[in-house]
């Protein structure tokens, strides 16, 4: 066991980790931040996406030790301290961008990474960016709508399917 320390959602957090401890295990089991989900554990589904030093990564495929000293953001840090949802989260609610909600933490974190680099993405760009995020419920349509809306764009342009 080695002690590792990282900034998570703006706060310094430390804990013990083995060499093999995955970042997602450290977040969920050691720090108790269970908002980040494990859907596949094989880098396919994106339910575990968090940001490390501002970049979206699959936390099931990164060692906790690799994030020692890093700045990590998770779904828990997205809403304001009083619980007010951020624009992306609110848009997911308004546009029914979730059903069971299992994929949602990863979808929101991927969407946040996309909008940081590309504040007004097209529908095609959104769909392309979400290639690594799988949703078994929504059919993606309302997720794309929510991200269009969160970026201040007209969602009427996306035809209902």
């Amino acid at each position, binding site marked *: 066991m080695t002690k590792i320390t990282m900034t998570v959602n703006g706060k310094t957090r430390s804990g013990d980790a083995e060499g093999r401890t995955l970042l997602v295990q450290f977040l969920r089991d050691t720090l108790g931040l269970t908002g980040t989900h494990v859907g596949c554990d094989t880098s396919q589904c994106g339910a575990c996406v968090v940001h490390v030093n501002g970049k*979206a990564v699959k936390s099931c495929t990164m060692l906790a030790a690799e994030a020692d000293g890093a700045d990590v953001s998770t779904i828990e840090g997205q809403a304001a301290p009083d619980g007010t949802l951020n624009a992306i989260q609110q848009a997911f609610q308004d546009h029914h961008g979730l059903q069971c909600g299992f994929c949602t933490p990863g979808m929101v974190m991927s969407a946040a990474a996309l909008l940081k680099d590309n504040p007004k993405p097209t529908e095609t760009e959104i769909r392309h960016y979400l290639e690594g995020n799988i949703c078994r419920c929504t059919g993606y349509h309302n997720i794309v709508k929510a991200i269009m809306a969160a970026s201040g764009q007209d969602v009427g342009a996306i035809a209902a399917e």
Partner: protein
Amino acid sequence: MYNFEFVKPATVDEAIAALREEDAQALGGGQTLLPTMKQRLAMPSKLVSLGGIADLVGVSSDGATLTLGGATPHAVVASNAGAYPALAALAGGIGDPAVRNRGTVGGSLANNDPAACYPSAALASGATIVTNAREIAADDYFQGLFSTALDEGEIITAVRFPIPQRANYQKFEQPASRFALVGVFVAQYADGVRVAVTGAGNDGVFRWSEAEAALSGSFTPDAVDGLSLSGDDMIGDLHGTGAYRAHLVKVMTKRAVAACN
């Protein structure tokens, strides 16, 4: 995954020293190695992360050659390799954004997955694989499925790509894995055209020499019309037969040439 010792050296020399230990292995972005370890198909006793070595990350160009640091993530290549647009596009098409933020060029070339994208770019560009010990020409580097000229404990520190006059990579994506079902990289240089194929060959990435000769004569999609590859030399699996892949190689080659023109 079995447990191991994790170390993150700050220099190449320290990494090489750490890799001398028996069963020590280099860790690039971990996008291939960690899944392999979870399946217990690899069980190193020590992982030597290359992620803390600043010298190994970066993209630079002198106009004739584009050089990538060995641990440069795909996303960094996609946004900084403008001097070699076909290579930047290839890097930007690997997997998904999160995979591209972690996965590295050195990891991809060291792994030499028969369906990976970078091997085709390295081979079609006649790239030089630079390691801590020597320089290896791409033509000598790839040695069959998941096998390369690298020795145990040797790491890729940089890759040098001669910049072609025109080039294009066409990937027919396997939709579940997002790797190439077939990928063809065509690069035109002053002294001829090079064509490298990934995803298809039984022995991994290969140069399609008949197409190279035809395209060096006439750089048009029609130039390869009369050529054909045998399905017997191609991978056949549940995603496609050998004959299907052989057909796709020609289609992707034509598309790549058309995209260059």
